[in-house]
């Protein structure tokens, strides 16, 4: 189908969706280029999903494979769930970026290269023996554009060093892409205007527009493409990443519960952005504290919880593990706080910028002795917002630390997010213990319904009391070494956490309510699993899906739901943590699909497993 764009002299072709990957050196501005293209795409009304994939090194040696940074965006006129398995279009700024990414491109797809950077030295540094281009011309639609030269020509006469001029070339490429897919550039120009001044601003805007004009006039692109806006739920949308949504959810919890928020954290990839983002919101009365280490981060957070703040700490795997002893104290003292773990690939330092779901069992069992706490997981970037609110709801209502699991993939991925109606969000009035209501004050007296103990904060006259890590006497909370009491307190805390199950919405099944195959997921794999299940049903397979937010306790109907299906498939980005839990609790024969490569599931991988199991 073709249509004529009224402002263009070329034809444009309507397509349903396209996936583009930007790739270059870490210092080439690929993440920025991708983000700006994402913003423009969102404003054009497409559904979209992004996947930034960058090395842990800030700037590895230029031109090497180690330094290649990529950003993939998938956008569509229909509802999509993932950044797509394979890009349709690759923009490679140098030979290393080409070599690292070209084999991912869909056969026959478009590969745009900055031909200026293809010389013998750069090819050697990238590990190419000879000239790869003749072969690629056979297999792909190879478009060779001299980005460096064209950018320099566009910026002639500006008072910029040659280095400053060359740093603008990513915006030339962005301009070309904007023309190719009919994206407006107003938002990017607005952003540039807020970021730069003088000739740097002029340079970036000029090269962006020059790139657009180049697309319009060059013979290299006979047509442009139109991806019509998506038909998704109506409302006001914005782009949001998982870390941003988590941060906003924490701020929102403070507003909705009318309490000050305290965030204690120590920088760690990929969780630091939550700290950065929350630190911007001091005008919400939020206090952020960059502690000297992970242990101080959680300790200060527990102190803030004791004092009556909505207290939260955020880190990733290695940091989360350092917090475990203190979380045990929070379990013992039954204080409400939220500990967020944006999981990354491990063990040890592992692959800090890559994703994994390997910390579920550590969250559940990583403290010594019987130390139960609720665990919830965010499933999409936008869901991180609601997960933060839910975590605080549980923490405060049940007087318990709550662990939130996110992961490196949803933390950095962006998606269009239907902005929630603030007036419709749950509001909770926090009630601290009040000496007027209580005769003799018992710090470990329990609410008959929830099992929660009172939250008696310093500064309240008449409720002076002492808490700590030593075993507490039931009721009084005094130090107790009595054997019966010890067992009773362990049981009371266990019952309290398990009782939360009654307060959770029952699991709802996507697809047939019972039958042949149920695909179970948790956390950041929701997008890929949803896409695969939808595909499978479109192909006529009977495939159902559930996705767990609450991992401890499980929703009370989980066992019953699992029992309604002949086969259960559980894809996890680990060696099967949830599978182990479901097997032991419900005695269900779970089929595992495990991937531990630091990368999210591809839809094709899931489809293969679903098809194989379905037809077995």
């Amino acid at each position: 189908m073709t249509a004529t764009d009224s402002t263009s002299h070329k034809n444009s072709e309507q397509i349903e969706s396209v996936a583009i990957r930007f790739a270059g050196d870490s210092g080439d501005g690929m993440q920025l280029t991708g983000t700006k293209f994402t913003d423009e795409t969102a404003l054009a009304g497409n559904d979209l999903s992004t996947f930034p994939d960058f090395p842990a090194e800030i700037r590895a040696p230029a031109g090497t494979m180690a330094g290649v940074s990529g950003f993939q965006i998938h956008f569509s006129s229909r509802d999509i769930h993932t950044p797509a398995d394979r890009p349709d279009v690759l923009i490679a700024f140098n030979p290393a970026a080409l070599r690292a990414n070209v084999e991912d491109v869909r056969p026959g797809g478009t590969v745009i290269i900055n031909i200026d950077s293809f010389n013998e030295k750069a090819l050697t540094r990238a590990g190419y023996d000879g000239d790869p281009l003749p072969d690629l011309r056979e297999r792909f639609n190879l478009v060779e554009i001299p980005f460096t030269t064209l950018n320099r020509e566009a910026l002639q006469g500006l008072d910029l060093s040659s280095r400053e001029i060359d740093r603008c070339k990513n915006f030339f490429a962005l301009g070309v892409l904007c023309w190719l897919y009919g994206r407006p550039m107003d938002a990017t120009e607005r952003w540039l205007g807020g970021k730069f001044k003088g000739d740097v601003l002029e340079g970036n805007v000029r090269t962006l527009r020059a790139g657009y004009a180049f697309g319009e006039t060059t013979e290299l692109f006979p047509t442009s493409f139109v991806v019509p806006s998506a038909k998704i739920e109506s409302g006001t949308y914005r782009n949001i990443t998982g870390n941003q949504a988590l941060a906003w959810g924490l701020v929102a919890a403070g507003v909705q519960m009318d309490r000050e928020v305290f965030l204690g954290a120590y920088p760690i990839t990929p969780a630091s952005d939550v700290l950065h983002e929350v630190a911007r919101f001091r005008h919400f009365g939020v206090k952020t504290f960059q502690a000297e280490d992970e242990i101080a981060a959680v300790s200060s957070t527990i102190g803030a919880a004791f004092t009556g703040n909505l207290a939260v700490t955020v880190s990733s795997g290695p940091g989360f593990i350092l917090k475990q002893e203190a979380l045990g104290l929070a379990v013992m003292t039954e204080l409400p706080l939220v500990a967020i773990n944006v999981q990354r690939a491990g063990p040890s330092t592992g692959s800090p910028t890559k994703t994994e779901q390997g910390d579920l069992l550590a969250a559940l069992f990583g403290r010594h002795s019987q130390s139960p706490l609720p665990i919830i997981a965010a499933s999409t970037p936008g869901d991180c917002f609601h997960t933060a609110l839910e975590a605080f709801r549980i923490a405060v209502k049940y007087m318990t630390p709550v662990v939130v699991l996110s992961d490196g993939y949803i933390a950095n991925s962006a998606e269009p997010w239907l902005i929630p109606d603030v007036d419709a969000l749950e509001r909770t009035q926090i009630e601290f213990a009040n000496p007027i209501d209580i005769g003799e004050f018992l710090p470990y007296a329990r609410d008959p319904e929830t099992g929660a103990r009172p939250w008696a904060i310093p500064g309240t006259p008449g409720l002076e009391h002492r808490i700590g890590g030593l075993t507490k006497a039931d009721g009084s909370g005094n130090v107790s070494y009595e054997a019966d009491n010890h067992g009773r307190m362990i049981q009371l805390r266990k019952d309290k956490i398990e009782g939360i199950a009654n307060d959770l919405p029952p699991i709802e099944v996507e697809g047939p309510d019972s039958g042949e195959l149920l695909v179970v997921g948790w956390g950041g794999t929701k997008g890929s699993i949803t896409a695969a299940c939808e595909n499978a049903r479109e192909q006529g397979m009977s495939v159902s899906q559930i996705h767990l937010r609450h991992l401890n306790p499980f929703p009370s109907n989980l066992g019953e739901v699992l029992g309604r299906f002949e086969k259960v498939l559980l894809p996890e980005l680990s060696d099967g943590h949830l599978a182990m839990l479901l097997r032991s609790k419900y005695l269900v024969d779970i089929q595992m699909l495990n991937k531990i490569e630091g990368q999210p599931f591809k839809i094709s991988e899931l489809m293969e497993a679903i098809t194989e199991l379905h037809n077995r």
Partner: protein
Amino acid sequence: MAADAAVKVSRKDFVSDQDVRWCPGCGDYSILANVQRVMPELGVPRENVVFVSGIGCSSRFPYYMNTYGFHTIHGRAPAFATGIKISNPELSVWIVTGDGDGLSIGGNHLLHTIRRNVNTQVLLFNNKIYGLTKGQYSPTSDVGTKTKSTPQGAIDHPIDPISFALGCGATFVARTIDVDAKHMQQVLKRAHEHEGTAFVEILQNCPVFNDGIWDELQDRKTRAQSALVLEHGEPLVFGPPGEKKGIVFNSGIPSVIDLADDDDPVARGVVVHDEQAPAASYAGVLATLQRPDFPLPVGVLRAVEKPTYEDMLQRQVDDAIEERGKGDLKALLHSGDTWQV
């Protein structure tokens, strides 16, 4: 129960209903009694007092105070206290720690709390031994100390708590002795009055695992010779009548001179104590005065003013609200680029 200025509070009001479970003769009893005695004089309502501790014999302290209290985990009390103070700057927050808890496992937290100048009182009970784990050497034990874990004698070089605190940039540093009630109460009051982290080393005897290490300072008969009692604006003089001595500095190097009873110490060149000396190097030299070559300084070595962490943080919150208005969640969610579907 409500705080009523007219109701006179006494020591008893700060005694909790819990049985104290330190060993008979432990120096902690005396410290507890003095803290409870000082509390009513500080003018802080009981509900606004929080005692925070880590792990060790000293860290049982909060259970015995009828205030808010938090017995936390090993070494981390300063970090908990920081969260408490940031969350509610109105509270009077006291950290109770020991030489093992504060300077070994918790050395990092102590360092950072002190350098941030979080307005808390740190009471470090120094008995140069691990008591609760039954007698291993600690980071303040002297070289050669024989314990269960060092049967041939400790080979670690000890850390001096006062020098450590000064090195961290402490704005208030003092030392006192477990059995010297009057002196300790003065020091505790000064520590409380100080805006910022007030670091107090309390020399404390462990009668079970390290008995007698502070004998010459605890014994009134020998204290005059072995302790240098610091008073702001007074010369550094010590010794009983007839055996008076003074501290002089030669190019910053301290030495002891004999004084006749009718000598004017200042005229003889004895250093006049200045706890407010802008440079920490003066207190640093005092900290090097160690037994047996010198008397051990007790009292306030350093007390200078610096903004506190929690005040500066609160000011950033206030400034942000003044500049941007109180945060509006709806406006936040709709900020930046949005679009309608």
